[in-house]
């Protein structure tokens, strides 16, 4: 709760053009945004670039983010990230110059073991991607946000800009299509659908 409260205070500074406060928001939430993007795109390299694009877009629209006391910036950031995926070609084009100035990736695997670990992760993502092919993009969004990003149904609805009932129905359809087994511990709060 303290962190969420901090988000509101930080965003007030960001709205006035405080880039250092924005850097703090990045430090705080980049990993969550990246994880969402990896699971949403099934492409680790693309997710890294879209993480930067998401925050550049967030800066561009910083005055549209209205956080109340106790609010976290995560749902709003994930909404932007989701839009970046939907129109990733346009997003990458818009920020192509900024992306071209990205520093050399300090995380680039230096050893064969690290490379293999990264490729293993990619292989697992490819398998998941194959499994989800039967879902519509909207159903995939709901699955990634609620089951894999720990958002509550309300937060997922806020992120996607849709009614909470629509989130529920998309997840219900997804489960039905997949005949999926769900680990209840991965579902946030008490919003577990019957």
């Amino acid at each position: 709760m303290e962190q969420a409260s901090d988000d509101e205070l930080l965003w007030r500074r960001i709205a006035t053009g405080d880039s250092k406060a924005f850097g703090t928001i990045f430090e705080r939430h980049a990993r969550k945004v990246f994880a969402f993007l990896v699971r949403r795109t099934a492409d680790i390299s693309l997710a890294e670039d879209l993480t930067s694009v998401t925050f550049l877009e967030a800066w561009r629209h910083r005055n549209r983010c209205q956080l109340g006391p106790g609010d976290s910036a995560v749902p709003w950031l994930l909404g932007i990230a989701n839009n970046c995926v939907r129109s990733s070609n346009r997003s990458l084009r818009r920020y192509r110059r900024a992306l071209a100035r990205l520093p050399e990736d300090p995380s680039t695997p230096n050893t064969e073991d690290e490379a293999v670990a990264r490729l293993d992760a990619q292989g697992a993502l490819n398998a998941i991607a194959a499994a989800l092919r039967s879902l519509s993009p909207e159903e995939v969004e709901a699955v990634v946000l609620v089951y894999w990003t720990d958002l509550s149904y309300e937060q997922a609805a806020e992120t996607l800009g849709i009614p909470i009932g629509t989130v529920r129905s998309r997840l219900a359809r997804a489960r039905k299509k997949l005949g999926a087994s769900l680990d209840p511990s991965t579902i946030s709060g008490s919003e577990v659908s019957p």
Partner: protein
Amino acid sequence: MIDLSPPFVPPLSDAWIEARRRHLIAEVTTRSRGRLTRRRMAVGMGALIASSAAVVFGVVGIGEQAAFAGWTSTPTPAAAGQTATATAACQARLRAAGSSAADSPVSLVDTRGPFTLLVFGDSASTALCVSGATFTSITPSEPPAVPAVSSGNVVVGHASYTSRNGQPYTLIEGQVGSSVTGVGLVLGDGSNVTATVNGGRFAAWWPGVDGIASAQVTTAQGTTTQPLDIATPTSPPQVHNSGQGS
């Protein structure tokens, strides 16, 4: 029954976060300055507008990098040892990924300046690999469709784009009918890329994320236009696609 437990995500290091944070702050600071400069220009005198415009154009140009310097829209002859070096790098990558395509024959080599695209595979396992001076990136692909493509036609087997360290690029690979001798691709922005055709397959790649509007298919009878309308390798290689650089 599918297990929907969250897929593993490789962790981002503190160094990655710090490097990207610094980049982000530098970018947003530059953007704010650029916007302020433009506002001042709008209310300035004509002469000031002219001089300020030069400043703005200069700012825009800073950092503009040729992400794939040396890439050509038409295939070029390979330099001595270029194909062998790329093949070794790609095979190492494929083996590290546990792909059986590493031991498959190379069915097509597409050379564009310092970059080499290799198509590995047979009817069982296929992979695409782009190798340049600073990177080698592999992408799994579907084995060729059977039966063969009808004469004079092309069929796209794989089209995706990915982005590596801020360098997006698009890959396409497919089969050609027996009489096809050349394939030109018209991209969504109207530019042209000539594919390499060999052994019943064609392949090409280009920097950026432009889709493909059509193919100019050349046979002994002439050149015809075949609509491809893959304005969507534009559709992101999201969960539905398997394209991936590594």
